[in-house]
């Protein structure tokens, strides 16, 4: 389905370009990003196809793809892109736009990845710092997969690899205030 007629304005392209600071129109579809990307094999649409979707204004298709959730921001693609397009920034822009516009993929992997990030940010909000053991446990509870990685735990604990205790920042209030104000800025954008 091509939604872009000649007289229609590609607002999706404009929004992505503005947010990412890149110019997606410069992409000439060589596919170097696809062969470079370590996770392109896991994506519904590899980076090259996502770029073309943006050019064609296929907003919903891009939002519902798992591609931007699999992007690791390793910047291997942008380093080799002959048009020097900041592809990770483009992926990030689509992700942020999809979140802002309340698009939610039902793909299990995407849901897991989002859940992990939510837990992570929640933990930093509460303690100011992050704590792997607790994060693992919470992730397992919230994805209803209690025994994931449990075989690693005894060895890791025994070896003192993962400490039992948990550190937090002293001025927790400053962190919570930052969260609140950043959230306010996020809402002002809309």
């Amino acid at each position, binding site marked *: 389905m091509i939604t872009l007629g000649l007289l229609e304005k590609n607002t999706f392209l404009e929004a992505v370009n503005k947010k990412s600071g890149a110019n997606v129109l410069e992409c000439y579809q060589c596919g170097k990003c696809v062969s470079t990307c370590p996770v392109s094999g896991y994506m519904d649409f590899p980076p090259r196809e996502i770029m073309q979707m943006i050019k064609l204004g296929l907003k919903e298709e891009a939002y519902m793809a798992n591609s931007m959730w699999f992007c690791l921001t390793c910047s291997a693609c942008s380093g080799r892109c002959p048009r020097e397009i900041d592809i990770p920034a483009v992926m990030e822009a689509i992700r942020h736009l999809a979140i802002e516009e309340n698009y939610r993929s039902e793909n299990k992997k995407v849901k897991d990845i989002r859940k992990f990030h939510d837990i992570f940010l929640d933990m930093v909000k509460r303690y100011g710092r992050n704590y792997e053991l607790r994060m693992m446990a919470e992730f397992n509870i919230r994805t209803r997969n209690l025994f994931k990685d449990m075989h690693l735990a005894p060895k890791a604990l025994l070896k003192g690899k993962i400490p039992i205790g948990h550190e937090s920042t002293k001025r927790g209030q*400053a962190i919570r205030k*930052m969260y609140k104000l950043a959230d306010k800025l996020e809402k002002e954008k809309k």
Partner: protein
Amino acid sequence: MNKLTYFPGCSAHSTSEEYDHTLKLVMRTLDVQMEEIPDWNCCGATSAHVMTENLALALPMRNLVLAERLENKTMAIACASCYSRMKSTKKHLDENPELARKINSTVIDEGEYKGTIDVKSMLQYCYEEIGLETIKSKVVKSLSGLKVACYYGCLLTRPKDVTHFDSPEYPMSMDRLMEALGAKAMDFDYKTECCGASFSISNTEVVESLSGKILEVAKESGAHLIVVACPLCQSNLDMRQPDIERHTGKKFDLPVMYFTQLMALAFGYPEVELKFPKHIVPVEAALKHIGEVIPEPEKVKRTKKAVEAESEVE
């Protein structure tokens, strides 16, 4: 004595305590006084920038503001992810004063952002500001005989316009550092491939596949162990290694050590200080190679005819 602002990151205070500890030993020998940023917070890597725009800048900014208060010229960061977040935030803020003012308003109680501090990774600090000659002069126990594969991961050198350090494709700074300690750095094509980083918990199969390839190529290079400069790389390659071995049916037996552990070893610190028991893949067997003589690659004997033919062409 040089003074340095130090940002450890959450991992250095939990899963990678051995990195933090050996780093402090090494800096003591190198006569650098490290000042940890008081009451630092998590930089948000990698979840904050995945989910939000403003919080992704605000979390590192608070650390930058607190770091500036210490009034040292440079801040060095132990973890590659934290380094990447901090440095790209700084770039964004410095290029866009209006954005800086806006984000600063969320952490204004901590102070005003000035943009005066220089942000470096710990590897970069050792390589650029301390220098190989100084490091070499402190070596009391050469690591000769030890073959290492230096793994940089994605974020120490990429993206280039953020890090401005070494090559994004085939960096050599850690290799040179290891050679200064006497070890032999092997040719290793996967030195900047991604290990799967933050997918360690949420998408383990990706990490096992990506880290598995890195382990495989490192093994092929002939290295006795892998050297890293990032806690996340270390835990993906070390803690997940037995699982990767089980799923692929290949045997790697490659210990994954921090470059500071090997520096501390070469600087003469006793093994008990290097916290080897924390490694999942035991390191002792690999370190037994220290002191071995690595034979020079044999020169291929060439026939008289071949040599003559070549000189004729010239």
